């Protein structure tokens, strides 16, 4: 049985290590913060200028001066520090963030990532995604294995404009966990009762190992 969104997020949380500084993308990746082990010391970075992002505020705690990169109201923690945008991206670009978990439209077998635009449709912009994939130490993509039309999102080559070239380390989908390795995509783990045959059928990218 393929993982649902919650199980995907829970699986992605296993990518965390104690002491990590982590940036979570908008969408499913945000859910990962619900599955951080209680005894882990994890610090979330929000690229609009905050290290040590806390949970959403209660109604009383709402502060218009305190939002995350998705423009949602959030709270601070004891450990929190604030800084400007260039300082925030110095952290990102300089490789000081251990892990980023991001959504994607497509990932290629060489680790190319496309998640910012669909030509012909309205273009909203890449925000901080290109900086994150270029700078963060490890990039994990969290996405459905197939798009709404049932087509594989794990491709030999991305068809959409890229966010980054050869930047993805691991992909977690509803079907399992996959690594970008020499020669293609390696199956690391399958969701319960998901068969290799199903994965082969639903994956356009070259599967190796």
């Amino acid at each position, binding site marked *: 049985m393929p993982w649902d969104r919650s199980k995907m997020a829970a699986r992605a949380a296993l990518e965390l290590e104690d002491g990590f500084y982590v940036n979570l993308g908008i969408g499913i990746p945000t859910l990962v913060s619900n599955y951080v082990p209680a005894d882990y010391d994890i610090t979330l970075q929000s690229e609009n200028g905050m290290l040590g992002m806390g949970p959403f505020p209660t109604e009383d705690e709402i502060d218009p001066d305190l939002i995350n990169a998705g423009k*949602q109201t*959030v709270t601070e923690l004891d450990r929190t520090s604030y800084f*400007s945008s260039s300082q925030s991206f110095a952290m990102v670009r300089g490789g000081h963030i251990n892990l980023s978990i991001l959504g994607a439209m497509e990932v290629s077998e060489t680790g190319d990532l496309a998640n910012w635009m669909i030509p012909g449709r309205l273009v909203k*912009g*890449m925000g901080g995604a*290109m900086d994150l994939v*270029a*700078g963060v130490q490890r990039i994990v993509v969290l996405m459905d294995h197939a798009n709404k039309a049932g087509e594989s999102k794990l491709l030999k080559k991305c068809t959409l404009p*890229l966010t980054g070239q050869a930047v993805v380390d691991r992909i977690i989908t509803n079907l399992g966990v996959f690594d970008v390795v020499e020669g293609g995509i390696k199956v690391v783990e399958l969701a319960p009762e998901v068969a290799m045959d199903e994965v082969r059928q639903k994956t356009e990218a070259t599967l190796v190992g």
Partner: protein
Amino acid sequence: MGKVYQDAASALDGILFDGMSIAAGGFGLCGIPENLIQAIKDAGTKRLTVASNNAGVDDFGLGLLLQDKQVKKMISSYVGENDLFMQQYLAGQLEIEFNPQGTLAERLRAGGAGIPGFYTATGVGTEIAEGKELKEFDGKTYVLERGLKMDLAIIKAWKGDAQGNLTYRRTAMNFNPECATAGKVTIAEVEEIVPVGSLDKMAIHTPGVYVQRIFQGAHEKRIEQRTTRAA
């Protein structure tokens, strides 16, 4: 020689001209120079090139300048919250130059710091790098990005003093310090003008040298995504 002005309109006196470039602080609607944007709308200045991470929403923030088609070009990383923007863009009335968020922040910082160009891995292998110079350092490819210097910077801080020293509050800081350095002229609006000497000298995020004019304004501080948890 006083830097303190009465309001946005007087602070902008003699500064605006059609076709000028403006750097505007803020992230989404957080930490935006609300009063200065409204005053530029009122002034009706045209053909603006605006560098700002976002373009506001239809009826607030930089969106106000789109209503009367005052903007010719935006330099932004994300404009998803603005329908008016999309209409004008698709109608060919508005140019957009997308910059990765970190590249935009660094371009503004570089422009303010006298650095005309720097290399970054961000965007290499994507259309962002097309037409730009690539260079290898230690076996890895980087793209040359240019510093940005703008005719005017409009920024918003929490507290400021008559010397132009500014301090920001929480994530309302965002792009404001970078914009402050990148303006040939920088105008700051603050929630409160405080006596010189009362700001914590170790927490003056923008030293007064970057600020030519300052005024105290009223701020609505609209929230874009009001997200809460149960108490």
